[in-house]
């Protein structure tokens, strides 16, 4: 029996101890009319050898294309030690560290994570992770409404330069509690928040402004001016950032005169594989003054009966298992193992390493844009500074060009026509440190041929 160790003798003797004639008798409190006699729709069980073969065949079907897609999930080198340690049974198969004395490993690791991510984002405190970048934006909006001392407003400005899927998740998650999300347009010349459109909200009662840096197009927003403007209007500032970029970019804690109030983002670039979209983890950091409004688990350092340092979950009065209907969020299980991987990643890569990853990603992305815009009919959509992504405009339908590239084993980028139809035929492309000059040349050559082919068709 797969993963059930009982012998026939065990079952006999255990039933005798219980005083039941059969295992079936243990279900005698369930109305007979509800009982089922089997699960006919489930296939027969497989041995480990058979499932291994099946999964390898399935994996082969997915292939290993050369990918230039970013759009919220980024391919980076992951040191071998990250997952070798993360999948150790002691981390992998442990529960949430409610029994602190038997969970000091996980608890200390979370404390170290909180330290690293707080420092990286320039904020004072962090929680132990949220589900992903999208749900973190939703939780940040709810938190801003809760934490705002002077405004009772349920309105939050989420400019169109914020990842469209994050905006969708925010609406599905926070809309039920009455939050309203207002969209602000971007400038066509540099793909950044349109300050004139934003100015229309001056003087209104609004809980928060969300600023994504680098924004969804890969462009760098003027975060200082935006932060100061929002604060002058009495809004809190929610920063949405790429953790890799923070090795080089100003951290949200330093934005404007007083810094952002809540910082969130997708933690995937820190040692988490792309894996079709998950599991990833969302991070959230904030000012100490808002710590009691923060959702999710938090670890604190304290002492034991002997005065020895130790770690424990703290401020649990915010959470669902204590506060039930009045909790800051319903979140319980979060993304602990991914946070574990990220902590090991940040340790192995170190401050210089992260700067290098960010710098090489910027270099490669710049080289990519340069090579691709050499192709006739392809140009960059925006001026201004970028991190490691860029929007390209094509004079052929992006979807047809992407299909053509796919036949060459290349995933050429993310087609923006669904989310930003006003751009026309537009592609969001990305290169990180994993791409070589050869990869870029291969893409440029294939793009030239693809554009030709689509044009001829």
């Amino acid at each position: 029996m797969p993963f059930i160790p009982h012998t026939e003798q065990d079952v006999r003797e255990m039933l005798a101890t219980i005083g039941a004639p059969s295992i079936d008798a243990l279900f005698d409190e369930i109305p007979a009319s509800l009982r089922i006699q089997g699960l006919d729709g489930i296939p027969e069980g497989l041995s480990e050898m058979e499932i291994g073969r099946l999964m390898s065949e399935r994996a082969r079907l997915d292939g290993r294309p050369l990918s230039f897609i970013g759009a919220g999930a980024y391919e980076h080198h992951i040191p071998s030690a990250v997952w070798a340690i993360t999948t150790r049974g002691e981390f992998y198969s442990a529960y949430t560290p409610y029994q602190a004395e038997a969970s000091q490993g996980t608890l200390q690791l979370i404390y170290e994570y909180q330290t690293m991510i707080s420092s990286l984002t320039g904020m004072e405190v962090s929680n132990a992770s949220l589900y992903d970048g999208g749900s973190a934006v939703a939780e940040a909006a709810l938190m801003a409404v809760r934490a705002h001392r002077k405004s009772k407003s349920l309105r939050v400005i989420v400019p169109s330069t914020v990842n469209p899927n994050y905006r969708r998740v925010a609406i599905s998650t926070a809309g039920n509690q009455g939050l309203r999300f207002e969209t602000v347009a971007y400038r066509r010349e540099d793909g950044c928040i349109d300050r004139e459109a934003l100015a229309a909200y001056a003087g209104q009662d609004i809980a928060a402004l969300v600023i994504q840096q680098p924004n969804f197009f890969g462009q760098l927003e003027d975060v200082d001016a935006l932060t100061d403007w929002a604060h002058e209007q009495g809004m809190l500032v929610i920063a949405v950032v790429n953790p890799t970029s923070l090795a080089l970019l100003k951290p949200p804690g330093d934005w404007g005169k007083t810094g952002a109030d809540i910082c969130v983002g997708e933690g995937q670039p820190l040692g988490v594989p792309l894996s079709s979209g998950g599991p990833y983890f969302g991070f959230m950091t904030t000012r100490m003054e808002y710590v009691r409004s923060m959702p999710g688990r938090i670890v604190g350092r304290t002492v034991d009966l002997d005065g020895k340092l130790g770690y424990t979950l703290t401020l649990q009065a915010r959470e669902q298992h204590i506060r039930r209907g009045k909790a800051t969020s319903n979140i319980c299980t979060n993304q602990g193992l991914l946070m574990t991987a990220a902590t090991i990643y940040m340790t192995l890569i170190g401050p210089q390493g992260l700067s290098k990853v960010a710098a090489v990603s910027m270099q490669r992305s710049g080289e990519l844009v340069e090579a691709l815009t050499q192709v006739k009919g392809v140009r960059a959509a925006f001026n201004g500074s970028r991190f490691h992504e860029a929007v390209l405009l094509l004079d052929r339908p992006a979807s047809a060009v992407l299909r053509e590239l796919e036949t060459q084993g290349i995933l050429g980028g993310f087609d923006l026509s669904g989310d930003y139809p006003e751009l026309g035929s537009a592609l969001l492309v990305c290169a990180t440190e994993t791409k070589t000059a050869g990869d870029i040349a291969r893409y440029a050559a294939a793009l030239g041929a693809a554009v030709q082919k689509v044009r001829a068709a």
Partner: protein
Amino acid sequence: MNQILEKSIFEYSRSGRSASVQQPPGADVPSAVEKIPVALRRSKAPMLPEVSELDAVRHFTRLSQLNFSIDTNFYPLGSCTMKYNPKACNQYAMLPEFLARHPLAPDSQGQGFLSCMFELQEMLKEVTGMKAVSLNPMAGAHGEFAGVAMIRAYHRARGDLARNEIIVPEAAHGTNPATATMCGCIVKEIPVDAQGDVDLDALAKAVGPNTAGIMLTNPSTLGVFERKIEQVAKLVHGAGGLLYYDGANLNAILGKVRPGDMGFDVIHMNLHKTFSTPHGGGGPGAGAVGVSARLEPFLPVPIVGREGDQYRWLSEVNRPQSIGRLSAFMGNAGVLLRAYIYMRMLGREGMSRVGEYATLNANYVMARLRQAGFDLAYPERRASHEFIVTMKRQAKDLNVTAMDIAKRLLDYGFHAPTTYFPLLVPECLLIEPTETESRETLDAFVVAMATILGEAETDANTLKTAPHTMPVRRLDDVRAAKQLDLTWKPVNSAA
């Protein structure tokens, strides 16, 4: 267990040290920084450790050794289903093609992955008796959110706008009322009777034209099957409300009875419990949701569809009434792969045995603990896959609490059961052995419990000051909350 505490990773750090082989070659940081406007540049490096690869490997390996885990200890944590996580599930979910696949890669570059997801949806439908499944929610509470949001969307779509009350039995998980609040609903708690079943009179009084639905766990968190489930369904449906099934305890009934057959309209499944994906020290989980036909249009997107022999994502365009997206992409894909592999290894026969042997183990431990002198919260009832011991008598007579027993168990090498939940049973220990534990392990646990009960009578102080063999003794939680120390700081820092 390793007794030596591990120092902070920051204390290993030395300026200029690095695991240089991990860094990308050819980096020109200054010229990259030059392309960033001065005002947008970082001025001070983040405080990340500067250590060698061996320093890092040793530090985190040592930290891991300070943990209890399923791989190292019996973990009878009630309502958490801490069963063995097969190694094959991890290995084959981490094949290079699966790990490298970008979430926005076209469907044509993901037929292997998508076929697994489609089949997982189908298998989950079969084991729960529901009409349709969405795999998006990333944890149990996230699935609860999706479920209650669908219930609200259903009533709204019918123009039934007054229905904003969610009924929750007092024994429910804290996530139930918290979820109802997150969905903008009002929570109404109802009591259970002396035998652990829902109080039908109270329920009859609670339902009405404002009832959106009821959230139930069955078997309940009291470790017993809700015998009046058919009457509950009739009452709630009769009042125009819907039934939500919290799948936290699905392991107890897998292959024996299905939520869909009990009359539930929407359920979430904790794949990290019933389908053995790892708990990871606090996630990732996966909280797939299943629905009856009338809620199908509201399922969160994306969902995997099949056309001929091709699999593809269905999005908002195909599902205009969907409650929308709950994650940037499609939830915890890698966790879902692990659940798929687990279900395929178990197969039809293996899956039916899960509920049987989980129940056998629970009833066996319950019988033996009763013989050993422990009081059961519901002695007249069968255990489901878990049961409750109450230490009320010992607390009164010996001044020994459930917490003391829990902490002392750690000294004997067993993880503590769930304590002080559900709240309505005083001094309770909620014990769930799971089906993957052998009789010898269960016997050893019973011996430890009996020994501790003896100590309670002769040497209560040893219990009250337990644990004695862990890396730390009981921690000062009050100090942790009052003198917040949430990040490491250098000893000489001004802060």
